């Protein structure tokens, strides 16, 4: 038990209003998505579908160099091209617009276009606005930039000792080390002294990215009459940090209205878009016309600020009597050219640093470095997916070295169900769980014993079949403390602690509900989920509910999807808002029925007497009365006209870290769990891998929509397969990104994923969230890589091949096999 947790009865801190129920009307049903009809008929209205009157188009000249000083820029020929409206260099933009937002401390300054220096291939240098995108790109070709090439820093280990001209941000000191952190949680020395085995591994997790099918875009429209900016963007956190774009534009926050559009996928990459709105805003203000900029795929792959964790681990695991006790690791993380989230990804990973296991101590020695690559952003897992890989690889290594059983070893090490809520050494809390139940369900679905027999038979035929198991976590519902608690203690930066989600609900005079969300659709199912929860709350027909999205002018506090938080948070907000709506309906209904509200209840869309249910009024009748017959009711200040409510739901359970950060507090307590079991066959001649079977069992607490959850699991697993086997943003020694196209950066196609990925569910409701829901948006990607790595290693056990590095491409696998066969 940590210092902060001592004496705390966490269950008493629960703000849960609606516990899990035996039966539901709408929650738990695989309701078809309400988002789909317009998407299926080509009427989604994504960012690039928006055309404003008199709109001009921007293109951006990008750096061909990884690291260079901009000596001079000649834009004369571009400016002279007919149809060109504006040419703006980074230095010109910086005269009117400040740096973009960052969570890093000390800040790592980034502008929407490079000023003085470029720091990665693809970084924007000059923007052109023209009558069409074609003309803007023509003009780009007419710009001459004179660069003084600087040393390119590519290798993360070499980056630690960079100095002089090789330093990306000299204002942060003569080093490319962005931040170091040494943290110890629990009795690490004691655990290692008492260990009977110490397992050592070096692991490499390579750089990949979310790469949604739609790139990022923004359209800015500056009105010089009012001084107001309207910016359309496929961003997510606009009601959380959108105002920081106004700060960059040097305007008051209320002079910027951000209108969200639906996003054609994000997976985290569109969470915190700041560069494009800032750039288009700057251009629109300068040229007096609405300006659209859409990234093309090259822009997106080289410079969208969305590459993900790029880590080298050197780890040791202490084991005593077949039980894991302590884990210590050195980790170097290559953050690329800027540092927008600081080491938030490592903060995140501390939420589930022991996974599902009773490990009593953790020691982390972190070095975050800056290199001449696209900067890191968010991608499905936000660092915890790598922690899962580390833990499961270390568990598999222990199993291997001890000759233990992969199922029984895990089971023996699990935190047992009776110990929840459970505080882990870092200070975070696990709310609930039954890990053995998940493991058993996966083994049953897969027919684990049956596959072991088939594997033995295959091996006799000389075939390389392997079974991989990953039992790991999906923390859900982030708290903002993760962004800063690993920052230097004397310079923690902006120590925000809020991560709310609001909602507005209005019942119109005909009894239909309009729900306004404060965060956009980005491929998840916010409209469906909100419809199901509100229908449950107000006993309404889902067809009578419609969903809307706020802009920042009308917006309440909201944080948006990310960290598998949205379903939990919007359910909390809706429970709060609908409690107010219900109260109003009962009060108005009480006057209509001449009954006390306490004698009334809401059943099947009617306000009726508890003991005489046939005596009642429909929501539509009550709503009409509430909207238009004020004088028929008493002069009660609570009986204002209409039926509407807003509610901002704050994080269900979060606490502060302590001063010396030996205890990070509770920050990610809604703990999902999963077991992935995968069977692969490796062709030793070609290194090609085939999936023979794949089972994923997840526990996301109470399920709101099993169909969409399954969609997340299958889709997330596919992206996890990409991470495990195919994807890698590959920079050469000069810092050139060699695979910046979909022809070369290999996201999985249909033939790369299992034909039938079978899913199962266990439900251990959270005691802290409404209905006991936990998040589930990232899980697939958080479980697949370690399960697949384990399966490959198991398949090649006769050769003694170890899988320490991702992606396990056929080429790498062939090299490992060749090496094993030669030795």
């Amino acid at each position, binding site marked *: 038990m940590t210092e902060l947790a001592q004496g705390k009865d966490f269950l008493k801190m629960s703000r849960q209003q609606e516990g899990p129920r035996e039966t539901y009307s709408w929650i738990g049903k695989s309701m*078809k*998505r309400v*988002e*789909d*009809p*317009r*998407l*299926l*008929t*080509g*009427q*989604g*209205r*994504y960012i*690039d*579908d928006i055309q404003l009157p008199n709109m001009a188009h921007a293109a951006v000249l990008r750096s061909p160099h990884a690291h260079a000083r901009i000596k001079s820029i000649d834009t004369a020929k571009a400016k002279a091209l007919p149809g060109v409206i504006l040419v703006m260099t980074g230095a010109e933009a910086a005269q009117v617009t400040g740096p973009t937002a960052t969570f890093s401390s000390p800040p790592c300054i980034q502008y929407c276009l490079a000023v003085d220096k470029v720091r990665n291939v693809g970084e924007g240098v000059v923007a052109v606005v023209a009558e069409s*995108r*074609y003309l803007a790109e023509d003009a780009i070709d007419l710009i001459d930039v004179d660069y003084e090439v600087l040393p390119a820093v590519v290798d993360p280990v070499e980056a630690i000792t960079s100095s002089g001209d090789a330093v990306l941000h000299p204002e942060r000191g003569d080093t490319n080390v962005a931040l170091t952190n040494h943290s110890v949680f629990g009795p690490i020395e004691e655990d290692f002294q008492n260990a009977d085995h110490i397992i050592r591994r070096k692991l490499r997790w390579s750089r990949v990215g*979310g*790469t*949604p*099918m*739609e790139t990022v875009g923004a359209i800015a429209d500056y009105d010089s009459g009012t001084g107001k900016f309207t910016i359309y963007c496929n961003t997510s956190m606009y009601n959380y940090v959108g105002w920081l774009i106004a700060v960059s534009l040097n305007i008051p926050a209320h002079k910027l209205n951000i209108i969200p559009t*639906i*996003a*054609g*996928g*994000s*997976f985290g990459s569109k969470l915190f878009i700041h560069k494009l709105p800032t750039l288009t805003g700057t251009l629109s203000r300068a040229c007096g016309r609405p300006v659209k900029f859409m990234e*093309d*795929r090259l822009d997106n792959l080289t410079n969208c600020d969305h590459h993900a964790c790029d880590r080298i681990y050197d780890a040791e695991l202490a084991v005593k009597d077949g039980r894991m006790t302590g884990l210590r690791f050195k980790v170097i993380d290559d953050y690329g050219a800027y540092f927008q989230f600081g080491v938030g990804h490592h903060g995140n990973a501390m939420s589930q640093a022991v996974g599902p296991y009773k490990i009593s101590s953790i020691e982390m020695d972190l070095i975050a470095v800056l290199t001449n690559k696209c900067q890191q952003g968010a991608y499905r897992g936000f660092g915890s997916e790598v922690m899962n890989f580390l833990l499961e690889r270390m568990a598999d290594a222990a199993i291997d070295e001890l000759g233990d059983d992969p199922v029984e070893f895990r089971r023996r090490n699990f935190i047992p169900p009776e110990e929840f809520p459970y505080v882990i050494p870092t200070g975070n809390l696990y709310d609930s769980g039954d890990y053995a139940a998940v493991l058993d369900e996966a083994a049953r679905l897969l027919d684990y014993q049956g596959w072991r027999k088939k594997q033995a038979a295959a091996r006799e035929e000389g075939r390389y079949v392997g079974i991989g198991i990953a039992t790991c976590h999906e923390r859900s519902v982030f708290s903002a403390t993760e962004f800063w608690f690993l920052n230097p203690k004397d310079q923690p930066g902006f120590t925000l602690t809020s991560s709310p989600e609001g909602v507005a609900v209005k019942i119109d005079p005909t009894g239909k509900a309009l729900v306004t969300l404060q965060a956009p*659709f*980005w*491929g*998840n*199912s916010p409209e469906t989920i909100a419809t199901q929860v509100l229908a449950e709350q107000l006993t309404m027909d889902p067809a009578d509910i419609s969903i809307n999205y706020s802009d920042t002018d009308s917006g309440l506090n909201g944080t948006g999807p990310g960290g598998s938080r949205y379903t939990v948070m919007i359910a909390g907000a809706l429970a709060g808002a609908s409690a107010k709506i219900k109260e109003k309906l009962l009060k108005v209904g009480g006057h209509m029925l001449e009954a006390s509200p306490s004698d009334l209840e809401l059943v099947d869309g009617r306000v009726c007497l508890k003991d005489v249910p046939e005596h009642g009024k429909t929501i539509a009748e009550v709503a009409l009365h509430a909207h238009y017959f004020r004088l028929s009711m008493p002069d009660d200040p609570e009986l204002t006209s209409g039926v509407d409510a807003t509610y901002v739901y704050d994080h269900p359970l979060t606490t502060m870290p302590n001063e010396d950060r030996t205890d990070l507090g509770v920050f990610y307590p809604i703990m999902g769990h999963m077991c992935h079991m995968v069977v692969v066959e490796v062709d030793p001649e070609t290194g090609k891998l085939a999936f023979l079977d794949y089972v994923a069992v997840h526990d996301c607490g109470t399920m709101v929509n099993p*169909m*969409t959850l*399954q*969609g997340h699991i*299958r*889709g*997330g*697993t*596919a*992206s996890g397969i990409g991470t495990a086997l195919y994807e890698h943003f590959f920079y050469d020694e000069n810092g050139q990104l060699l695979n910046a*196209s*979909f*022809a070369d950066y290999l*996201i999985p*196609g*249909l*033939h790369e*994923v*299992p*034909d*039938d*990925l079978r899913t199962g569910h266990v439900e251990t409701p959270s005691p802290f969230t409404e209905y006991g829901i936990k998040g589930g948006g990232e899980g*697939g990607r958080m479980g697949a890589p370690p399960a697949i790595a384990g399966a490959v290693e198991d398949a090649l056990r006769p050769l003694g091949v170890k899988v320490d590095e991702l992606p396990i491409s056929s080429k790498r696998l062939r090299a490992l096999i060749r090496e094993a066969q030669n030795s």
Partner: protein
Amino acid sequence: MATASSNGRIPIALKVNGVAYEREVEPRKLLSDFLREDLALTGTHVGCEHGVCGTCNVLLNGETARSCLIFAVQCDGAELRTIESLGTIDKMHPLQEAFWEKHGLQCGFCTPGMLLSAVELLEKNADPSREEIREAISSNFCRCTGYQNIVEAVEFAAKRMQEASQ
């Protein structure tokens, strides 16, 4: 072959979703941009602009084509079909219904191209095997679904369409 007018544009005549259009276009204008900008048919999405992902698929004289790799002028005299030619919200095409039913989409961005690949398949082969469906769909990328539900949706639609035609 039509000749360029004085502004460098080329006159073209083509049919899109059964409607005849006559337009003058720059020779370099991509079909995807022509559909989206000149005809306001924004259901055709652009994913990679280098012909890999299939998001921008349209049916060109009955065959799928990457509209990001074709110039509009190449479509003079052609018959094109885009996502807007399938069903409407009130009366969906069986494939659209099946994608809805089987959760064959999440963000919806790849969906128009995916649906047109499926239309092409089912018009040529009303009773495809699962392997044939997988082969047909494998020309398109989807980053959300992991493909399985898409394959199941096409299977489901094929079955329903056959039942309806019997």
